């Protein structure tokens, strides 16, 4: 059960979308949810285009990324893959911290800074998440969430080639995230492209089964992914605001 949901979410991380720390994703505001007439249907005026792009990304995954991930998985033991992932995530901590601060979460920002300093040193360039053992848990923040916390609505759902599911707001956020993550390290293009590829293939190899399960079990994979993305994003932003942006009660009492 959880595996399949993780798979639906994980599609959100496919391809450069992997740059996102966790299953990181996007979300419609209540107004838009109402406009569509249902709390579970994301606002998707460009569905025709999106479905084509989704199909393209699926093919790309099946023929390129999944085989690459499988190859990687065959070569490298899982613990090593996870170590690489942790290390790459570690170098995003400064940007996570920045987003926490931008959202007014100063304590969380301190947590992120402490994590970065600890894991970069004691944790050997982030290979070991020592900070988590000390109770400093990783926060999952990105600029799309920050925009959401500032009150920017999600806009229409959007699937772009080579990217996971997005909406307009998170697309902008994703652009900012990418720039902000590369810039502090003054990495030349080839290096950052190499790191992105490594991250993408490595992350894909960690979720081979999840994606496979979700793909095969879904009745409409496109709709399943779109919905999971929307729910997840709403939750992430709501957690930041500490209020529920959409009324879950509706979901549980709307039976006739």
């Amino acid at each position: 059960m959880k595996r399949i949901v993780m798979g639906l979410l994980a599609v959100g991380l496919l391809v450069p979308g992997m740059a996102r720390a966790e299953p990181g994703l996007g979300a419609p505001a209540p107004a838009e949810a109402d406009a569509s007439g249902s709390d579970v249907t994301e606002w998707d005026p460009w569905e025709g285009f999106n479905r084509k792009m989704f199909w393209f990304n699926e093919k790309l995954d099946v023929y390129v990324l999944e085989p690459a991930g499988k190859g990687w998985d065959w070569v490298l033991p899982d613990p090593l893959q996870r170590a690489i992932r942790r290390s790459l995530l570690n170098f995003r901590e400064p940007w996570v911290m920045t987003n926490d601060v931008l959202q007014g979460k100063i304590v969380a920002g301190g947590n992120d800074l402490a994590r970065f300093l600890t894991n970069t040193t004691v944790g050997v360039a982030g290979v070991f998440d020592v900070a988590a053992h000390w109770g400093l848990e990783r926060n999952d923040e990105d600029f799309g969430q920050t925009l959401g916390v500032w009150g920017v609505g999600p806009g229409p759902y959007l699937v772009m080639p080579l990217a996971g599911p997005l909406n307009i707001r998170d697309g902008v956020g994703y652009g900012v995230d990418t720039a902000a993550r590369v810039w502090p390290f003054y990495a030349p293009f080839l290096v950052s492209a190499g790191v992105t590829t490594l991250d993408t293939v490595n992350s894909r190899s960690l979720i081979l089964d999840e994606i496979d399960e979700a793909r095969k079990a879904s009745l409409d994979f496109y709709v399943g992914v779109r919905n999971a993305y929307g729910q997840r994003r709403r939750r992430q932003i709501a957690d930041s605001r500490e209020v529920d942006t959409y009324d879950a009660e509706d979901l549980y009492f709307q039976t006739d």
Partner: protein
Amino acid sequence: MMPRICISRRTSLAAAVMTAVLAVSAAVATEPAAVVTKLADDVIAVLKQDDLSKAAKRERLERLVLASVDFDTLSRLVMARNWTRLSEVQQGEFKREFKRHLSATYGRRIDNYQNETVHILSTREEVRGDRTVKSRISRGGGIEDVLVDYRLRQHDGEWKIIDFIIEGVSLVANFRSQFQELMSRGGPDHLLSALRKKTAEEEAREDAV
């Protein structure tokens, strides 16, 4: 005259005792968090039994899950306003097919138990009386934890699960969006046949493994 009074007195006494017993058992046995803890413990106990065949494991798991899930409510919630678009026969068929679908898709990976442990974090009372039990499933070995919430509703004094929310994604909402799509494409018949087809594929896959 006399015997009648006796009977009614006896029944009312019996009713009072029954009520008291039910009230006590409701208060003791069906604490929402306890329902989730028990389910998690029971499921893990079955998963750990190496001597059981996969089929036997799956049968036991199915029974455990069905005992703690209000499947009737869950089916209605998943269909939402489409529920009344189904005839009574179709509703029954939907419940059967949906159950089979869940069992086929989620029952497949049960050989894959990796010492997951379930920690109950908290219980929240919802506006209209439901409870949400929050849990964290740890897998250890540097793998990230998974947050799972269980929504429970009380029915006849018993708390039962009506939704699983995994990393913020409600299963009810996710299935609802997919069923809604199928309903708007081809109505109840299309939905039921799509569901049947998918489940058949899953079951074929399972036999092949």
